[in-house]
């Protein structure tokens, strides 16, 4: 073919690589015209483009010529010979698998573990990322997050005031729709003689179905959730109360006092939603839903923006609604004019939190349900891939280590005419066969242990999730990638042998690549040690949290819930219970120092409205026995007393609150807060004398500092707690239950122990520590599998050396040391690399906790020792075996 283009400037030439590709596939018959057309195209038509783009366009045109009619014959017809070869590759692969069953077992086991990890993590991550995506308007739905600042104190909450959503819809044309949800909390639901305690109940606006894509099965979208005291049920709840009967038109009795008319049925809210509700009551049933304030935070409010609307534009328009609604409201509450907003150091804003970000990113207080965390998605994905990678390393190590054994095979093949490519194909076939076998076993394992996995991560992933597109794709891609990744290196090392050298008897060629093998082993153990350190630190922190002096005694406290069922007979019930000598004391209170809903009220030190310290502070309603029952220490002043009538306008602070107000003599001061003596009248300011101070106690997760609390002697009905003797717990529970049944016949009795609830606060930490333990275990398992294989190989290769040493008087001990020394060195190196990485990682994890353990050196030493011991035990099996062989046997040959 004439090549005259040499005289043209090189920059204007089509890429050579593209031409070479064309020459490879295009049949000679068409080559000249096609190449000519392409070059003409490049010179004349593509000259408007420059540089890389012009090249890429040329490449694109070359690729588009890749059509069947143009292809060379040899590309189209499968060579029968090659087909036979494939057959032979497979045959040899399977023979090798069987012949070296021990190594195949190690390889396959390691890969199975790796692949199982990857599949599970894929399932986990897919599920985490799918949250709330079922909502058709999800991309333009936002949750209003209150972001307030009152006199320098910030207040953030996933809840917002009742009128905010509707106000925004009224004032801003971009807001297409809004809806509010308010959780109802545990409720006793009764239908005829069926009665259950329901935890997932909410009030919802009638616009609920315009925002969330949840299907209504019975009832009309525009009619349900409108009239007061109407309720709609999920399919599951219908099943629970009505069975196959049509529920619409029936009545459910809630908390034994209000009848709700069932007006509709909706499909269960998908598991991957950030909120769940088994029953939704109409918002209009909730009286205060229409009287709430802009400056409150009581509802989860969601708004849908019009298509293409920019949330920033909305935020820019906040000042207008502040002027119109918020200012008059605050003036009415304060009773005075507040002048200009900006001078008051007040901020009332609502962050627009995208619906799709809620599950993985939202950390604001007052979430619907515990959310996921994007950090864990990243961490688990990384760990999953690492574990698969560790398994691949085993494969590479064993294959290269044993390459000398196959060197003769390679030599002979090369001599009889096999080229390098077919050798590489042969080795890749072997590794792909292994990974396919591993994959099949892995899928079976996944199917078998999916329920355990679900418990571990607290999810409910169905078997059908395995059939989803991404998982299926992964199932096809994983064996290919693993096979190629794992087989790539051995394939190239082995196929590069020089047949003359090998067949002469010098087998050491490929075996000398010891540094690579060592490097990979070090990598495996570095990963394992890091994971072990992480596990230990998480467990340590958990232990610290659970055993830290909390400032109250959480053990032996029995909590009786839903005491509003007692219908005003709370005190009678309590007194009756206290007659039992096993029960030491009892208290009726609004909140307990374990996870529970809490409320804060604007609290004014010394009644001074202009004070810098005026801020929302937790308000706990308790009775006189509260501190005694929970073992909280009073450090100054006195407890509430029934004899002192004035105590109804007294309060007790915790130390944090005293510190917050900066008081040296708290007993000389007062605090004031708004109270609502009559729901139909505006709130009034009331002052309370400080009569005592209690020692700080941890009432929330140790992630947080201790917040200020003000205790008031006010009746409340939510929970009764009893301190009991430990002698006969079952008897005590039976007794309390019998009293309950007498006082509130027919009402379900439910109780819990405070230490259990306390442990529940650390569910997330417990979960993480469990998951880390599993991963650390798997990593070290895979690492040891590899070591086991390698040590077997080393022992095998050194059989003669050991024999000769033994003949000369070496002891078993010295043989074991000889064989273990190498590996021990590698573990030491791994430890040196792992320690600083683990230190850095865990330091940043612990930084999240206000109260935390230090990172002790012992954690690291222990992890290193653990890895070392496990590794040496693994290695010593073969070392001892080799050391025990009778030298006469090992030296008998040759």
């Amino acid at each position, binding site marked *: *073919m*004439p090549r005259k283009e040499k005289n043209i400037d090189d920059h204007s030439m089509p890429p050579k690589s593209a031409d070479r590709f064309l020459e490879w596939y295009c049949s000679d018959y068409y080559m*000249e*015209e096609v190449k000519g*057309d392409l070059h003409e195209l490049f*010179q004349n038509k593509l000259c408007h483009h420059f540089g890389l783009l012009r090249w890429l366009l040329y490449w694109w*045109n070359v690729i*588009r*010529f890749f059509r069947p009619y143009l292809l060379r014959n040899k590309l189209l017809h499968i060579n029968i010979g090659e087909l036979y070869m494939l057959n032979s590759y497979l045959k040899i692969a399977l023979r090798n698998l069987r012949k070296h069953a021990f190594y195949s077992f190690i390889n396959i086991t390691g890969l199975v573990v790796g692949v199982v990890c990857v599949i599970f993590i894929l399932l986990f991550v897919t599920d985490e990322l799918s949250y709330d995506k079922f909502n058709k308007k999800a991309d333009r739905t936002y949750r209003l997050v209150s972001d307030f600042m009152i006199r320098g104190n910030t207040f953030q909450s996933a809840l917002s005031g009742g009128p905010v959503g509707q106000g925004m819809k009224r004032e801003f044309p971009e807001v297409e729709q809004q809806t509010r949800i308010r959780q109802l909390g545990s409720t006793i639901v009764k239908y005829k003689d069926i009665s259950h305690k329901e935890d997932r109940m909410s009030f919802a606006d009638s616009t609920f179905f315009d925002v969330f894509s949840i299907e209504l099965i019975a009832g009309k979208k525009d009619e349900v959730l409108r009239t007061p005291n109407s309720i709609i049920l999920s399919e599951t709840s219908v099943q629970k109360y009505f069975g196959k009967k049509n529920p619409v038109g029936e009545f459910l009795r809630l908390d034994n006092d209000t009848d709700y008319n069932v007006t509709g049925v909706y499909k269960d809210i998908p598991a991957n939603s950030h909120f769940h509700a088994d029953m939704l009551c109409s918002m209009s049933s909730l009286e205060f839903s229409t009287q709430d304030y802009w400056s409150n935070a009581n509802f989860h409010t969601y708004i849908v923006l019009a298509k293409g609307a920019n949330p920033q534009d909305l935020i820019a328009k906040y000042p207008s609604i502040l002027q119109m609604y918020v200012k008059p409201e605050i003036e009415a509450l304060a009773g005075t004019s507040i002048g200009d907003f900006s001078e008051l150091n007040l901020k009332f804003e609502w962050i627009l939190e995208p619906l799709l970000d809620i599950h993985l990113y939202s950390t604001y207080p007052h979430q619907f349900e515990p959310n996921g965390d994007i950090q864990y998605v990243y961490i688990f994905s990384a760990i999953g891939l690492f574990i698969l990678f560790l398994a691949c390393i085993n494969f590479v190590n064993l294959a290269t280590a044993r390459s000398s054994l196959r060197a003769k095979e390679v030599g002979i093949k090369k001599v009889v005419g096999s080229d390098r490519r077919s050798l590489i194909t042969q080795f890749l076939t072997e590794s792909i066969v292994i990974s396919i076998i591993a994959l099949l076993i892995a899928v079976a394992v996944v199917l078998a242990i999916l329920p355990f996995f679900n418990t571990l991560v607290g999810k409910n992933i169905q078997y059908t999730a395995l059939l989803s597109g991404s998982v299926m794709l992964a199932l096809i891609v994983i064996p290919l990638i693993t096979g190629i990744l794992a087989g790539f290196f051995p394939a190239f090392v082995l196929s590069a042998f020089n047949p003359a050298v090998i067949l002469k008897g010098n087998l050491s060629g490929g075996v000398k690549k010891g540094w690579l093998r060592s490097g990979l082993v070090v990598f495996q153990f570095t990963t394992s040690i890091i994971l072990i350190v992480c596990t230990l630190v998480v467990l340590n922190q958990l232990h610290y949290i659970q055993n830290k002096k909390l400032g109250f005694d959480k053990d032996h406290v029995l909590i009786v819930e839903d005491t509003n069922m007692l219908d005003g007979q709370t005190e009678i019930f309590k007194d009756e219970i206290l007659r039992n000598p096993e029960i030491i004391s009892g208290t009726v209170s609004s909140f307990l120092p374990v996870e529970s809903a809490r409320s804060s009220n604007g609290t004014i030190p010394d009644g001074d409205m202009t004070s810098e310290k005026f801020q929302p502070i937790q308000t706990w309603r308790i009775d006189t026995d509260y501190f005694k029952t929970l073992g909280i220490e009073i450090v100054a002043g006195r407890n509430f007393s029934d004899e002192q009538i004035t105590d109804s306008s007294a309060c007790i602070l915790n130390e944090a609150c005293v510190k917050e107000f900066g008081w040296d003599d708290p007993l000389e001061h007062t605090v004031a807060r708004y109270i609502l003596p009559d729901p139909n009248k505006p709130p009034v300011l009331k002052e309370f004398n400080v009569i005592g101070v209690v020692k700080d106690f941890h009432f929330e997760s140790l992630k947080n500092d201790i917040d200020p609390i003000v205790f008031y002697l006010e009746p409340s009905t939510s929970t009764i707690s009893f301190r009991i003797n430990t002698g006969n717990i079952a008897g005590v529970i039976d007794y309390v239950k019998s009293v309950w049944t007498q006082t509130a016949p027919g009402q379900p009795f439910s109780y819990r122990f405070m230490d259990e609830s306390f442990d529940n606060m650390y569910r997330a930490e417990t979960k993480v520590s469990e998951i880390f333990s599993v991963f650390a275990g798997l990593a070290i398992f895979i690492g040891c599998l590899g070591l086991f294989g390698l040590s077997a190989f080393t022992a095998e290769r050194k059989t003669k050396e050991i024999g000769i040493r033994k003949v000369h008087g070496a002891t078993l001990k010295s043989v074991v040391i000889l064989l273990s020394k190498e590996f021990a060195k590698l573990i030491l190196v791994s430890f040196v690399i792992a320690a600083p990485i683990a230190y850095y990682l865990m330091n940043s994890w612990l930084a999240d906790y206000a109260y935390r353990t230090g990172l002790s050196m012992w954690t690291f030493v222990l992890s290193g020792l653990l890895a070392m011991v496990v590794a040496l035990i693994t290695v010593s099996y073969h070392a001892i075996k080799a050391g025990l062989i009778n030298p006469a046997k090992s030296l008998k040959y040759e």
Partner: protein
Amino acid sequence: MKKNRTNLGEFEELVLLVVGVLNDNAYGISIMEEIEKQARRKLSISAVHSVLTRLEKKGYLKSYMGGETNERGGRRKRFFTLTGSGKDAINEVREMRNKLWDIMPDLSMESL
């Protein structure tokens, strides 16, 4: 699908017509450019080439290699001309169209 009936795709017909129009200068790039000019549609050279090959196989086109050129690295072009059956084919399509236009009722024409 009977053998003796012309069965042309819309794009095939267009290519045949353009080959006729270009007369002695019909090769890959010129055909592509002519179609781009006349029909204002974006084409890839590979699509044109594949249609040309198909039409030659069907017997509507014949081709010959031209002489050495100065541009395109001196490579020769493959020129295409219509065969007898190629001319028949486009004629047949046109006649059929005319016939259909003739029998279309005036009424529906107005509403178009």
